[in-house]
Protein backbone atom coordinates (compact mmCIF):
# COMPACT_ATOMS: atom_id res chain seq x y z
CA UNK A 1 0.00 0.00 0.00
CA UNK A 2 2.76 2.45 0.88
CA UNK A 3 4.39 1.72 -2.47
CA UNK A 4 1.16 2.67 -4.21
CA UNK A 5 0.98 5.91 -2.26
CA UNK A 6 4.62 6.72 -3.02
CA UNK A 7 3.97 6.34 -6.74
CA UNK A 8 0.64 8.21 -6.58
CA UNK A 9 2.31 11.07 -4.74
CA UNK A 10 5.11 11.30 -7.30
CA UNK A 11 2.57 11.15 -10.12
CA UNK A 12 0.38 13.93 -8.70
CA UNK A 13 3.45 16.02 -7.96
CA UNK A 14 4.71 15.65 -11.50
CA UNK A 15 1.56 17.38 -12.80
CA UNK A 16 2.23 20.34 -10.56
CA UNK A 17 5.95 20.68 -11.27
CA UNK A 18 5.16 20.90 -14.97
CA UNK A 19 2.79 23.40 -16.60
CA UNK A 20 0.18 20.67 -17.25
CA UNK A 21 -1.69 21.09 -13.97
CA UNK A 22 -1.84 24.88 -14.22
CA UNK A 23 -2.93 24.90 -17.85
CA UNK A 24 -5.69 22.38 -17.18
CA UNK A 25 -6.87 24.15 -14.03
CA UNK A 26 -6.89 27.56 -15.71
CA UNK A 27 -8.78 26.39 -18.79
CA UNK A 28 -11.24 24.45 -16.69
CA UNK A 29 -11.82 27.41 -14.37
CA UNK A 30 -12.52 29.64 -17.35
CA UNK A 31 -14.99 27.25 -18.99
CA UNK A 32 -16.59 26.26 -15.72
CA UNK A 33 -17.06 29.90 -14.84
CA UNK A 34 -18.61 30.60 -18.23
CA UNK A 35 -21.04 27.68 -17.88
CA UNK A 36 -22.00 28.78 -14.37
CA UNK A 37 -22.55 32.32 -15.56
CA UNK A 38 -24.89 31.18 -18.33
CA UNK A 39 -26.79 28.90 -15.92
CA UNK A 40 -27.22 31.65 -13.36
CA UNK A 41 -28.33 34.16 -16.01
CA UNK A 42 -30.87 31.60 -17.13
CA UNK A 43 -31.98 31.08 -13.53
CA UNK A 44 -32.48 34.82 -13.02
CA UNK A 45 -34.49 35.05 -16.23
CA UNK A 46 -36.72 32.22 -15.06
CA UNK A 47 -37.14 33.73 -11.61
CA UNK A 48 -38.24 37.02 -13.18
CA UNK A 49 -40.88 35.34 -15.30
CA UNK A 50 -42.27 33.08 -12.59
CA UNK A 51 -43.43 33.84 -9.10
CA UNK A 52 -40.49 34.00 -6.73
CA UNK A 53 -37.13 32.29 -7.21
CA UNK A 54 -36.97 29.27 -9.53
CA UNK A 55 -35.49 25.90 -8.57
CA UNK A 56 -31.77 26.49 -7.99
CA UNK A 57 -30.94 22.79 -8.29
CA UNK A 58 -32.82 22.35 -11.52
CA UNK A 59 -31.70 25.52 -13.27
CA UNK A 60 -28.13 25.99 -12.06
CA UNK A 61 -26.60 22.88 -10.53
CA UNK A 62 -28.04 20.23 -12.88
CA UNK A 63 -26.98 21.90 -16.18
CA UNK A 64 -23.54 22.82 -14.86
CA UNK A 65 -22.97 19.30 -13.63
CA UNK A 66 -24.13 17.58 -16.81
CA UNK A 67 -21.80 19.82 -18.82
CA UNK A 68 -19.00 18.56 -16.65
CA UNK A 69 -19.35 15.18 -18.31
CA UNK A 70 -18.65 16.66 -21.74
CA UNK A 71 -15.76 18.71 -20.42
CA UNK A 72 -14.09 15.66 -18.97
CA UNK A 73 -13.90 14.17 -22.48
CA UNK A 74 -11.34 16.82 -23.30
CA UNK A 75 -9.55 16.81 -19.98
CA UNK A 76 -9.07 13.08 -19.44
CA UNK A 77 -6.75 12.55 -22.44
CA UNK A 78 -4.58 15.43 -21.26
CA UNK A 79 -4.27 13.86 -17.83
CA UNK A 80 -3.60 10.30 -18.96
CA UNK A 81 -1.49 10.74 -22.08
CA UNK A 82 1.79 11.08 -20.22
CA UNK A 83 1.19 8.40 -17.57
CA UNK A 84 3.16 5.60 -19.20
CA UNK A 85 4.12 7.06 -22.58
CA UNK A 86 6.51 9.52 -20.93
CA UNK A 87 8.15 6.86 -18.75
CA UNK A 88 8.61 4.66 -21.78
CA UNK A 89 10.15 7.40 -23.85
CA UNK A 90 12.55 8.63 -21.18
CA UNK A 91 13.48 5.12 -20.04
CA UNK A 92 12.36 5.65 -16.45
CA UNK A 93 10.00 2.70 -16.92
CA UNK A 94 13.12 0.56 -16.44
CA UNK A 95 13.54 2.02 -12.98
CA UNK A 96 9.94 1.23 -12.03
CA UNK A 97 10.00 -2.30 -13.40
CA UNK A 98 13.37 -3.23 -11.89
CA UNK A 99 12.36 -1.90 -8.46
CA UNK A 100 10.89 -4.27 -5.89
CA UNK A 101 7.30 -3.19 -6.51
CA UNK A 102 4.62 -5.20 -8.28
CA UNK A 103 3.10 -4.17 -11.60
CA UNK A 104 -0.24 -3.68 -9.88
CA UNK A 105 1.32 -1.26 -7.38
CA UNK A 106 2.75 0.79 -10.24
CA UNK A 107 -0.58 0.83 -12.08
CA UNK A 108 -2.76 1.65 -9.06
CA UNK A 109 -0.30 4.33 -7.99
CA UNK A 110 -0.46 5.97 -11.38
CA UNK A 111 -4.24 5.72 -11.57
CA UNK A 112 -4.61 7.24 -8.11
CA UNK A 113 -2.24 10.06 -9.05
CA UNK A 114 -4.34 10.79 -12.13
CA UNK A 115 -7.49 10.65 -10.00
CA UNK A 116 -5.88 13.19 -7.68
CA UNK A 117 -5.32 15.56 -10.59
CA UNK A 118 -8.88 15.00 -11.77
CA UNK A 119 -10.18 15.72 -8.26
CA UNK A 120 -8.29 19.03 -8.22
CA UNK A 121 -9.99 19.98 -11.47
CA UNK A 122 -13.43 19.04 -10.15
CA UNK A 123 -12.64 21.17 -7.13
CA UNK A 124 -12.59 24.22 -9.37
CA UNK A 125 -16.16 23.55 -10.42
CA UNK A 126 -17.18 23.10 -6.82
CA UNK A 127 -15.77 26.55 -6.18
CA UNK A 128 -18.01 28.01 -8.90
CA UNK A 129 -21.04 26.24 -7.51
CA UNK A 130 -20.27 27.25 -3.94
CA UNK A 131 -21.69 30.69 -4.78
CA UNK A 132 -25.15 29.19 -5.17
CA UNK A 133 -24.85 28.02 -1.57
CA UNK A 134 -23.66 31.43 -0.47
CA UNK A 135 -26.60 33.31 -1.92
CA UNK A 136 -29.26 30.63 -2.18
CA UNK A 137 -30.39 27.52 -0.46
CA UNK A 138 -30.07 24.59 -2.86
CA UNK A 139 -30.17 20.94 -1.83
CA UNK A 140 -26.62 19.64 -1.45
CA UNK A 141 -27.53 15.96 -1.91
CA UNK A 142 -28.06 15.95 -5.70
CA UNK A 143 -24.75 17.78 -6.02
CA UNK A 144 -22.97 15.16 -3.91
CA UNK A 145 -24.51 12.42 -6.04
CA UNK A 146 -23.44 14.18 -9.20
CA UNK A 147 -19.90 14.44 -7.84
CA UNK A 148 -19.88 10.73 -7.07
CA UNK A 149 -20.98 10.16 -10.66
CA UNK A 150 -18.24 12.42 -12.01
CA UNK A 151 -15.63 10.57 -9.97
CA UNK A 152 -16.82 7.19 -11.17
CA UNK A 153 -17.05 8.27 -14.78
CA UNK A 154 -13.70 10.03 -14.59
CA UNK A 155 -12.11 7.01 -12.95
CA UNK A 156 -13.39 4.80 -15.76
CA UNK A 157 -12.08 7.06 -18.52
CA UNK A 158 -8.77 7.57 -16.69
CA UNK A 159 -8.31 3.79 -16.48
CA UNK A 160 -8.98 3.41 -20.21
CA UNK A 161 -6.68 6.37 -20.96
CA UNK A 162 -3.97 4.85 -18.79
CA UNK A 163 -4.18 1.63 -20.78
CA UNK A 164 -3.88 3.53 -24.05
CA UNK A 165 -0.90 5.48 -22.70
CA UNK A 166 0.78 2.17 -21.94
CA UNK A 167 0.51 1.00 -25.52
CA UNK A 168 2.71 3.73 -26.98
CA UNK A 169 5.76 5.83 -26.20
CA UNK A 170 4.31 8.83 -27.99
CA UNK A 171 2.19 11.15 -25.84
CA UNK A 172 0.37 12.73 -28.78
CA UNK A 173 -0.70 9.32 -30.07
CA UNK A 174 -1.86 8.35 -26.59
CA UNK A 175 -3.77 11.61 -26.15
CA UNK A 176 -5.46 11.53 -29.55
CA UNK A 177 -6.48 7.87 -29.22
CA UNK A 178 -7.84 8.44 -25.72
CA UNK A 179 -9.82 11.42 -26.90
CA UNK A 180 -11.32 9.34 -29.71
CA UNK A 181 -12.22 6.54 -27.33
CA UNK A 182 -13.80 8.96 -24.85
CA UNK A 183 -15.90 10.47 -27.62
CA UNK A 184 -17.00 7.05 -28.86
CA UNK A 185 -17.96 5.91 -25.39
CA UNK A 186 -19.84 9.13 -24.95
CA UNK A 187 -21.91 8.73 -28.11
CA UNK A 188 -22.55 4.98 -28.20
CA UNK A 189 -26.18 5.58 -27.22
CA UNK A 190 -26.80 7.26 -30.58
CA UNK A 191 -27.03 3.72 -31.91
CA UNK A 192 -30.58 3.53 -30.59
CA UNK A 193 -31.75 6.40 -32.81
CA UNK A 194 -32.20 4.05 -35.74
CA UNK A 195 -32.36 0.60 -34.16
CA UNK A 196 -33.91 -0.22 -30.82
CA UNK A 197 -32.85 -3.81 -30.23
CA UNK A 198 -30.02 -6.30 -30.68
CA UNK A 199 -26.47 -4.93 -30.99
CA UNK A 200 -27.68 -1.33 -30.86
CA UNK A 201 -28.98 -1.95 -27.40
CA UNK A 202 -25.73 -3.51 -26.27
CA UNK A 203 -23.76 -0.62 -27.71
CA UNK A 204 -26.08 1.91 -26.12
CA UNK A 205 -25.59 0.24 -22.78
CA UNK A 206 -21.82 0.84 -23.09
CA UNK A 207 -22.45 4.55 -23.46
CA UNK A 208 -21.17 6.62 -20.59
CA UNK A 209 -23.87 9.27 -21.07
CA UNK A 210 -26.65 6.91 -20.19
CA UNK A 211 -24.94 5.82 -17.00
CA UNK A 212 -23.86 9.28 -15.97
CA UNK A 213 -27.28 10.89 -16.49
CA UNK A 214 -28.86 9.18 -13.51
CA UNK A 215 -26.09 10.55 -11.26
CA UNK A 216 -26.56 14.02 -12.75
CA UNK A 217 -30.25 13.77 -11.88
CA UNK A 218 -29.34 12.91 -8.29
CA UNK A 219 -30.01 9.18 -8.41
CA UNK A 220 -27.46 6.64 -7.24
CA UNK A 221 -28.28 3.56 -9.30
CA UNK A 222 -26.47 0.34 -8.37
CA UNK A 223 -26.52 -0.71 -12.02
CA UNK A 224 -24.64 2.41 -13.10
CA UNK A 225 -22.24 2.25 -10.18
CA UNK A 226 -21.39 -1.34 -11.05
CA UNK A 227 -20.96 -0.36 -14.70
CA UNK A 228 -18.40 2.32 -13.91
CA UNK A 229 -16.56 0.12 -11.41
CA UNK A 230 -16.38 -2.63 -14.04
CA UNK A 231 -14.90 -0.25 -16.61
CA UNK A 232 -12.31 0.89 -14.04
CA UNK A 233 -11.43 -2.74 -13.35
CA UNK A 234 -11.24 -3.47 -17.08
CA UNK A 235 -8.94 -0.52 -17.72
CA UNK A 236 -6.63 -1.55 -14.89
CA UNK A 237 -6.65 -5.16 -16.05
CA UNK A 238 -5.78 -4.17 -19.62
CA UNK A 239 -2.98 -1.92 -18.38
CA UNK A 240 -1.58 -4.80 -16.33
CA UNK A 241 -1.61 -7.13 -19.34
CA UNK A 242 -0.05 -4.46 -21.53
CA UNK A 243 2.68 -3.71 -18.99
CA UNK A 244 3.41 -7.40 -18.73
CA UNK A 245 3.68 -7.72 -22.50
CA UNK A 246 6.34 -5.00 -22.46
CA UNK A 247 8.67 -7.49 -20.79
CA UNK A 248 8.29 -9.99 -23.59
CA UNK A 249 8.54 -7.51 -26.40
CA UNK A 250 10.98 -4.86 -25.18
Amino acid at each position, binding site marked *: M*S*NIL*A*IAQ*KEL*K*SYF*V*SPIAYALLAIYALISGWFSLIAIANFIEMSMQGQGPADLNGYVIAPVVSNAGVLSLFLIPMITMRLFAEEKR*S*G*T*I*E*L*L*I*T*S*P*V*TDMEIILGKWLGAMGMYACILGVKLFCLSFTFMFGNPDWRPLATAYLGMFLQGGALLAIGMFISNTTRNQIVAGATTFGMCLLFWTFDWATTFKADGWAKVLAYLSLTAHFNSFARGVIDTKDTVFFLSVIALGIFLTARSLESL*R*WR*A
Partner: protein
Amino acid sequence: MIKVEGITKRYARFTAVDNVSFEVAKGQIVGFLGPNGAGKTTTMRILTCFQPPSEGRASVAGFDVMEQPMEVKKRIGYLPETPPLYPDMEVGEYLEFVGKLKGLRGNDLAKRITEVSGKINIGDVRTKLIAKLSKGYKQRVGLAQALIHNPDVLILDEPTSGLDPQQILETRELIKGLAGDHTIILSTHILPEVEFTCERVVIISKGKLVATDTVDNLTHRMRGSENVGVEVEAREGTLDVSAVQRKLEQVAGVSKVILREDKNNRANFEVESLQGRSIRADLARAVVEGGFALTELKAAGMSLEDVFLQLTSTDKVDEAKVEEEIEKGEAA
Protein backbone atom coordinates in the same frame (compact mmCIF):
# COMPACT_ATOMS: atom_id res chain seq x y z
CA MET B 1 26.72 -14.24 -6.44
CA ILE B 2 25.51 -14.11 -10.02
CA LYS B 3 24.98 -17.26 -11.99
CA VAL B 4 23.94 -17.32 -15.61
CA GLU B 5 23.25 -20.69 -17.16
CA GLY B 6 22.68 -20.96 -20.87
CA ILE B 7 20.42 -17.95 -21.29
CA THR B 8 19.00 -17.26 -24.71
CA LYS B 9 16.80 -14.35 -25.74
CA ARG B 10 15.04 -14.69 -29.04
CA TYR B 11 12.97 -12.10 -30.82
CA ALA B 12 10.79 -12.73 -33.84
CA ARG B 13 13.58 -12.17 -36.32
CA PHE B 14 16.85 -12.45 -34.47
CA THR B 15 18.52 -13.91 -31.44
CA ALA B 16 19.91 -11.20 -29.18
CA VAL B 17 21.60 -13.52 -26.68
CA ASP B 18 22.55 -17.05 -27.59
CA ASN B 19 23.30 -19.62 -24.90
CA VAL B 20 25.44 -17.44 -22.64
CA SER B 21 26.74 -18.78 -19.32
CA PHE B 22 29.04 -17.20 -16.76
CA GLU B 23 29.43 -16.74 -13.05
CA VAL B 24 30.48 -13.81 -10.91
CA ALA B 25 31.85 -14.29 -7.41
CA LYS B 26 30.96 -12.03 -4.49
CA GLY B 27 32.77 -8.71 -4.41
CA GLN B 28 34.18 -8.98 -7.92
CA ILE B 29 34.06 -6.37 -10.65
CA VAL B 30 33.37 -7.93 -13.98
CA GLY B 31 33.62 -6.12 -17.27
CA PHE B 32 31.00 -7.08 -19.77
CA LEU B 33 32.58 -6.40 -23.09
CA GLY B 34 31.33 -6.44 -26.62
CA PRO B 35 30.71 -4.27 -29.65
CA ASN B 36 27.43 -2.40 -29.86
CA GLY B 37 24.49 -4.71 -30.44
CA ALA B 38 26.30 -7.73 -29.01
CA GLY B 39 23.61 -8.45 -26.45
CA LYS B 40 25.11 -6.75 -23.38
CA THR B 41 22.03 -4.71 -22.53
CA THR B 42 19.71 -7.66 -23.10
CA THR B 43 21.74 -9.84 -20.74
CA MET B 44 21.68 -7.10 -18.12
CA ARG B 45 17.95 -6.65 -18.52
CA ILE B 46 17.48 -10.35 -17.92
CA LEU B 47 19.55 -10.17 -14.74
CA THR B 48 17.54 -7.19 -13.47
CA CYS B 49 14.22 -8.94 -14.14
CA PHE B 50 13.26 -6.34 -16.74
CA GLN B 51 12.65 -9.08 -19.24
CA PRO B 52 12.70 -12.86 -18.98
CA PRO B 53 15.04 -15.07 -21.02
CA SER B 54 13.55 -17.29 -23.73
CA GLU B 55 15.63 -20.15 -22.41
CA GLY B 56 18.07 -20.84 -19.60
CA ARG B 57 18.27 -19.73 -16.00
CA ALA B 58 19.84 -16.84 -14.19
CA SER B 59 20.10 -16.27 -10.49
CA VAL B 60 21.28 -13.45 -8.25
CA ALA B 61 22.30 -14.19 -4.66
CA GLY B 62 20.68 -17.60 -5.02
CA PHE B 63 17.30 -16.27 -6.17
CA ASP B 64 16.03 -17.16 -9.61
CA VAL B 65 15.14 -14.14 -11.75
CA MET B 66 12.01 -15.86 -13.05
CA GLU B 67 10.73 -17.45 -9.87
CA GLN B 68 11.62 -14.90 -7.18
CA PRO B 69 11.96 -11.58 -9.01
CA MET B 70 11.05 -9.55 -5.90
CA GLU B 71 13.97 -10.98 -3.94
CA VAL B 72 16.31 -10.38 -6.88
CA LYS B 73 15.12 -6.80 -7.38
CA LYS B 74 15.71 -6.00 -3.69
CA ARG B 75 19.35 -7.02 -4.08
CA ILE B 76 20.13 -5.30 -7.36
CA GLY B 77 20.98 -1.72 -8.17
CA TYR B 78 20.68 -1.02 -11.86
CA LEU B 79 21.90 1.87 -13.93
CA PRO B 80 20.52 1.57 -17.47
CA GLU B 81 22.36 3.09 -20.41
CA THR B 82 20.33 6.29 -20.14
CA PRO B 83 20.03 7.09 -16.44
CA PRO B 84 16.33 6.79 -15.49
CA LEU B 85 15.85 10.36 -14.29
CA TYR B 86 12.78 12.56 -13.99
CA PRO B 87 13.94 15.94 -15.29
CA ASP B 88 11.22 17.85 -13.41
CA MET B 89 12.35 16.58 -10.01
CA GLU B 90 14.98 17.93 -7.69
CA VAL B 91 17.88 15.58 -7.00
CA GLY B 92 16.88 15.12 -3.36
CA GLU B 93 13.24 14.51 -4.24
CA TYR B 94 14.27 11.99 -6.86
CA LEU B 95 16.49 10.03 -4.50
CA GLU B 96 13.69 10.04 -1.94
CA PHE B 97 11.25 8.64 -4.49
CA VAL B 98 13.67 5.94 -5.66
CA GLY B 99 14.45 5.08 -2.04
CA LYS B 100 10.76 4.60 -1.36
CA LEU B 101 10.42 2.43 -4.45
CA LYS B 102 13.24 0.28 -3.13
CA GLY B 103 11.45 -0.11 0.17
CA LEU B 104 13.28 2.41 2.38
CA ARG B 105 11.21 4.55 4.75
CA GLY B 106 11.62 7.29 7.33
CA ASN B 107 14.97 7.53 9.09
CA ASP B 108 16.63 4.80 7.05
CA LEU B 109 15.73 6.63 3.89
CA ALA B 110 17.08 9.99 5.09
CA LYS B 111 20.27 8.32 6.31
CA ARG B 112 20.88 6.49 3.04
CA ILE B 113 20.28 9.64 0.98
CA THR B 114 22.91 11.48 3.00
CA GLU B 115 25.35 8.57 2.80
CA VAL B 116 24.98 8.05 -0.92
CA SER B 117 25.10 11.78 -1.69
CA GLY B 118 28.38 11.93 0.18
CA LYS B 119 29.84 8.86 -1.49
CA ILE B 120 28.90 9.92 -5.01
CA ASN B 121 29.65 13.56 -4.30
CA ILE B 122 26.33 15.08 -5.25
CA GLY B 123 25.57 16.76 -1.91
CA ASP B 124 25.95 20.21 -3.47
CA VAL B 125 23.20 19.65 -6.06
CA ARG B 126 20.56 18.15 -3.75
CA THR B 127 18.12 21.02 -4.35
CA LYS B 128 18.81 21.43 -8.07
CA LEU B 129 16.41 20.36 -10.79
CA ILE B 130 17.68 17.28 -12.58
CA ALA B 131 16.96 18.92 -15.95
CA LYS B 132 19.53 21.61 -15.11
CA LEU B 133 22.35 19.22 -14.26
CA SER B 134 25.35 18.59 -16.48
CA LYS B 135 25.71 15.22 -18.13
CA GLY B 136 28.33 14.15 -15.62
CA TYR B 137 26.12 15.00 -12.66
CA LYS B 138 23.17 13.23 -14.26
CA GLN B 139 25.28 10.12 -14.56
CA ARG B 140 26.22 10.42 -10.90
CA VAL B 141 22.64 10.84 -9.82
CA GLY B 142 21.92 7.72 -11.85
CA LEU B 143 24.65 5.92 -9.95
CA ALA B 144 23.30 7.22 -6.63
CA GLN B 145 19.90 5.87 -7.62
CA ALA B 146 21.39 2.42 -8.15
CA LEU B 147 23.16 2.55 -4.79
CA ILE B 148 20.39 3.98 -2.64
CA HIS B 149 19.26 0.71 -1.07
CA ASN B 150 22.81 -0.54 -0.61
CA PRO B 151 22.35 -3.51 -2.95
CA ASP B 152 24.61 -6.56 -3.00
CA VAL B 153 24.84 -6.42 -6.77
CA LEU B 154 25.35 -3.42 -9.03
CA ILE B 155 24.60 -3.66 -12.72
CA LEU B 156 25.89 -0.71 -14.70
CA ASP B 157 25.18 -0.38 -18.40
CA GLU B 158 27.90 1.75 -20.00
CA PRO B 159 28.39 3.96 -16.95
CA THR B 160 30.92 6.23 -18.64
CA SER B 161 29.29 6.75 -22.02
CA GLY B 162 28.98 10.36 -23.02
CA LEU B 163 31.19 11.76 -20.27
CA ASP B 164 34.26 13.92 -20.77
CA PRO B 165 37.70 12.39 -20.05
CA GLN B 166 37.90 13.93 -16.59
CA GLN B 167 34.47 12.63 -15.66
CA ILE B 168 35.30 9.22 -17.09
CA LEU B 169 38.33 9.00 -14.80
CA GLU B 170 36.28 10.08 -11.79
CA THR B 171 33.51 7.62 -12.54
CA ARG B 172 36.01 4.79 -12.95
CA GLU B 173 37.64 5.61 -9.62
CA LEU B 174 34.21 5.75 -8.04
CA ILE B 175 33.22 2.35 -9.38
CA LYS B 176 36.54 0.85 -8.36
CA GLY B 177 35.97 2.16 -4.86
CA LEU B 178 32.63 0.38 -4.69
CA ALA B 179 34.10 -3.07 -5.30
CA GLY B 180 34.32 -5.36 -2.32
CA ASP B 181 31.12 -4.12 -0.72
CA HIS B 182 29.24 -4.73 -3.93
CA THR B 183 29.47 -7.26 -6.70
CA ILE B 184 29.60 -5.26 -9.90
CA ILE B 185 28.91 -6.03 -13.54
CA LEU B 186 29.64 -3.16 -15.86
CA SER B 187 29.21 -3.20 -19.58
CA THR B 188 31.33 -1.17 -21.90
CA HIS B 189 32.89 -1.11 -25.30
CA ILE B 190 35.77 1.02 -24.08
CA LEU B 191 38.68 -1.30 -23.43
CA PRO B 192 40.94 0.76 -21.19
CA GLU B 193 38.00 0.95 -18.86
CA VAL B 194 38.01 -2.79 -18.38
CA GLU B 195 41.79 -2.91 -17.98
CA PHE B 196 41.56 -0.19 -15.38
CA THR B 197 38.55 -1.24 -13.33
CA CYS B 198 37.77 -4.89 -13.77
CA GLU B 199 39.23 -8.09 -12.44
CA ARG B 200 37.46 -10.32 -14.89
CA VAL B 201 36.13 -9.91 -18.39
CA VAL B 202 33.22 -11.53 -20.11
CA ILE B 203 33.39 -10.90 -23.84
CA ILE B 204 30.34 -11.44 -25.99
CA SER B 205 29.85 -10.83 -29.66
CA LYS B 206 26.70 -11.26 -31.75
CA GLY B 207 24.92 -12.72 -28.74
CA LYS B 208 27.49 -15.43 -28.14
CA LEU B 209 29.98 -15.76 -25.33
CA VAL B 210 33.49 -15.50 -26.79
CA ALA B 211 35.70 -15.52 -23.72
CA THR B 212 35.56 -15.22 -19.99
CA ASP B 213 38.72 -14.93 -17.94
CA THR B 214 40.79 -12.55 -15.86
CA VAL B 215 42.20 -9.56 -17.70
CA ASP B 216 45.82 -10.77 -17.23
CA ASN B 217 45.13 -14.30 -18.35
CA LEU B 218 43.30 -13.16 -21.39
CA THR B 219 46.03 -10.90 -22.69
CA HIS B 220 48.66 -13.48 -21.80
CA ARG B 221 46.84 -16.35 -23.41
CA MET B 222 46.26 -14.47 -26.61
CA ARG B 223 49.83 -13.27 -26.83
CA GLY B 224 51.90 -16.45 -26.99
CA SER B 225 54.81 -14.95 -28.90
CA GLU B 226 56.55 -11.63 -28.32
CA ASN B 227 56.41 -8.74 -30.74
CA VAL B 228 59.19 -6.18 -30.58
CA GLY B 229 59.51 -2.92 -32.44
CA VAL B 230 63.12 -2.02 -33.32
CA GLU B 231 64.33 1.29 -34.73
CA VAL B 232 67.84 1.52 -36.07
CA GLU B 233 69.99 4.41 -37.38
CA ALA B 234 73.34 4.44 -39.09
CA ARG B 235 76.28 5.57 -36.96
CA GLU B 236 77.75 7.30 -40.03
CA GLY B 237 77.05 7.33 -43.75
CA THR B 238 74.05 5.58 -45.17
CA LEU B 239 72.23 2.76 -43.49
CA ASP B 240 72.43 -0.67 -45.06
CA VAL B 241 68.90 -1.78 -44.35
CA SER B 242 69.28 -5.34 -45.61
CA ALA B 243 72.40 -5.81 -43.46
CA VAL B 244 70.42 -4.83 -40.39
CA GLN B 245 67.63 -7.16 -41.34
CA ARG B 246 70.07 -10.05 -41.78
CA LYS B 247 71.65 -9.29 -38.44
CA LEU B 248 68.25 -9.32 -36.72
CA GLU B 249 67.19 -12.55 -38.37
CA GLN B 250 70.31 -14.26 -37.05
CA VAL B 251 69.35 -13.63 -33.44
CA ALA B 252 68.33 -16.84 -31.68
CA GLY B 253 64.58 -17.15 -31.11
CA VAL B 254 63.50 -14.77 -33.87
CA SER B 255 60.90 -16.17 -36.22
CA LYS B 256 60.13 -13.23 -38.46
CA VAL B 257 61.50 -9.76 -39.21
CA ILE B 258 59.33 -7.29 -41.07
CA LEU B 259 60.57 -3.93 -42.34
CA ARG B 260 57.97 -1.35 -41.45
CA GLU B 261 59.58 1.89 -42.53
CA ASP B 262 62.80 3.04 -44.11
CA LYS B 263 63.23 6.79 -44.22
CA ASN B 264 66.04 9.33 -43.68
CA ASN B 265 68.60 6.71 -42.83
CA ARG B 266 66.37 5.29 -40.19
CA ALA B 267 64.70 1.87 -40.37
CA ASN B 268 61.80 0.50 -38.39
CA PHE B 269 61.40 -3.25 -37.97
CA GLU B 270 58.87 -5.43 -36.32
CA VAL B 271 60.39 -8.58 -34.94
CA GLU B 272 58.34 -11.57 -33.87
CA SER B 273 59.75 -14.17 -31.52
CA LEU B 274 59.17 -17.89 -31.43
CA GLN B 275 56.60 -19.13 -28.96
CA GLY B 276 57.63 -18.33 -25.39
CA ARG B 277 61.03 -16.77 -26.18
CA SER B 278 62.29 -13.46 -24.81
CA ILE B 279 64.46 -11.78 -27.44
CA ARG B 280 64.75 -8.12 -26.55
CA ALA B 281 68.19 -8.24 -24.87
CA ASP B 282 69.64 -10.30 -27.72
CA LEU B 283 68.21 -7.96 -30.35
CA ALA B 284 69.80 -4.94 -28.69
CA ARG B 285 73.19 -6.66 -28.53
CA ALA B 286 72.97 -7.76 -32.17
CA VAL B 287 72.24 -4.24 -33.40
CA VAL B 288 75.05 -2.67 -31.39
CA GLU B 289 77.57 -5.37 -32.34
CA GLY B 290 76.67 -4.87 -36.00
CA GLY B 291 77.81 -1.24 -35.68
CA PHE B 292 74.40 0.39 -35.91
CA ALA B 293 72.74 2.82 -33.55
CA LEU B 294 69.74 1.48 -31.70
CA THR B 295 67.29 4.37 -31.26
CA GLU B 296 64.21 2.53 -30.07
CA LEU B 297 63.29 -0.88 -28.73
CA LYS B 298 59.79 -1.51 -27.50
CA ALA B 299 57.61 -4.45 -26.67
CA ALA B 300 54.62 -4.32 -28.96
CA GLY B 301 52.68 -6.68 -26.69
CA MET B 302 49.09 -7.49 -27.32
CA SER B 303 46.77 -5.18 -25.50
CA LEU B 304 43.29 -6.12 -24.46
CA GLU B 305 42.21 -4.09 -27.43
CA ASP B 306 43.92 -6.48 -29.83
CA VAL B 307 42.50 -9.44 -27.98
CA PHE B 308 39.07 -7.97 -28.17
CA LEU B 309 39.25 -7.24 -31.86
CA GLN B 310 40.68 -10.65 -32.57
CA LEU B 311 37.87 -12.31 -30.66
CA THR B 312 34.94 -10.27 -31.78
CA SER B 313 35.59 -9.28 -35.36
CA THR B 314 35.00 -11.61 -38.23
CA ASP B 315 35.66 -9.15 -40.98
CA LYS B 316 37.34 -5.83 -41.58
CA VAL B 317 34.12 -3.84 -41.70
CA ASP B 318 33.26 -4.86 -38.19
CA GLU B 319 36.71 -4.04 -36.94
CA ALA B 320 36.60 -0.57 -38.42
CA LYS B 321 33.23 0.01 -36.85
CA VAL B 322 34.36 -1.10 -33.43
CA GLU B 323 37.44 1.08 -33.62
CA GLU B 324 35.29 3.99 -34.63
CA GLU B 325 32.98 3.32 -31.68
CA ILE B 326 35.92 3.16 -29.33
CA GLU B 327 37.24 6.45 -30.60
CA LYS B 328 33.82 8.00 -30.35
CA GLY B 329 33.42 6.71 -26.84
CA GLU B 330 36.76 8.06 -25.78
CA ALA B 331 36.35 11.37 -27.53
CA ALA B 332 32.87 11.96 -26.15
